[in-house]
């Protein structure tokens, strides 16, 4: 707040706390913080790169509510800037997932991530239509399309309404389909979906509590 750099802030906080959880708008900021810290640093989200604690709770949710091995998953919304999906697809590649990326062309998954996944022999499909894929997936991971990514508000309105989960859309879904969302949502999941057996996002938010408790305990050496 007084214009000091992050490196100094981290060095000071290292003297005050046993552990640092950092959320920062710049890409790679947490990795840099870890270089300067003398205590463990947990990434609470850096720019549009990673959100690993969200990924841990996403994996836990998927394991509890569906299954991890060979999962057919679609990730939809802002795949370009959405750090939760970047971290999640790297993690799911360890479990041999089949991934479908659903987004408008301007918000596609970054090519370097797609390349990494393909190198790991992960099956990938890209589309801009939820209708096209809803019957073929076991988990649908929705993300919010952020208004600030669009210079033209009309363009935002068009995209926002194209990627929307409604009761109608779910008519052709697998009965066991689970819908996840890192929250907050705006209008990408219609409230009528909340009461269906597909909706998992509030349970998912709850799982964030024990998962982060476990991560803190691990980082502090309370558990091994």
């Amino acid at each position: 707040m007084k214009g000091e750099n992050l490196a100094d802030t981290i060095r000071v906080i290292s003297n005050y706390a046993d552990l640092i959880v950092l959320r920062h708008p710049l890409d790679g900021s947490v990795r840099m913080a870890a270089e300067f810290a003398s205590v463990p640093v947990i990434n609470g989200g850096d720019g549009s790169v990673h959100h690993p604690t969200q990924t841990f709770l996403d994996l836990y949710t998927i394991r509890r509510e569906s299954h991890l091995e060979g999962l057919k998953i679609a990730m939809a919304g802002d795949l370009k800037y959405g750090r939760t999906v970047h971290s999640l697809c790297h993690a799911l590649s360890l479990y041999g997932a089949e991934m479908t990326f659903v987004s408008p062309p301007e918000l596609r998954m970054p090519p370097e991530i797609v390349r990494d996944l393909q190198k790991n022999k992960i099956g990938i499909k890209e589309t801009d239509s939820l209708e096209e894929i809803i019957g073929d997936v076991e988990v649908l991971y929705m993300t919010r399309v952020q208004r600030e990514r669009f210079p033209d508000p009309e363009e935002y309105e068009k995209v926002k309404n194209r990627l929307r989960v409604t009761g109608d859309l779910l008519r052709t879904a697998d009965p066991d389909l689970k819908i996840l969302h890192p929250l907050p949502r705006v209008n990408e999941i219609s409230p009528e979906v909340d009461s269906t057996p597909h909706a998992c996002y509030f349970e998912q938010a709850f799982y964030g509590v024990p998962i982060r408790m476990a991560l803190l305990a691990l980082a502090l050496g309370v558990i091994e």
Partner: protein
Amino acid sequence: MKEKWNLKIQAIENGTVIDHIKAGQALNVLRILGISSAFRATISFVMNASGARSKKDVVKIEGKELSVEELNRIALISPKATINIIRDFEVVQKNNVVLPSYVEGVVRCVNSKCISNSSEPIKSKFSVFQSEEEGVTLHCLYCEHVISEDIAENLL
């Protein structure tokens, strides 16, 4: 003709000659080596000289032998360059540049939101890879952005 040629590329007594630089890249070679106006040694270079097969650039640094680590950075922009160490007008060592697996403080990350482009007290850091499909690529160790082209344009 011969005399004019000698004026252009005069032999040096001691130092480093970087030969077979990709035509047009001599100034970038100086940048990648961190050679600026503060550098005290005499530097001469030729651009677009006629080589055996095609045009090339040549850089000569008098009275200074640069380290292998410094010189290998040249591979980022000119992978076929050769390094000749000269002592008493003789070439005592001749090597091809070898692509380093890691570079620090040499290239700017093209991602404007990368922490390495902020005012933090850090240098850019990249892992270097080479493949047939993509050529030389730099992977930012902070933001994970990949630079696959325009490496020369982003030299620090």
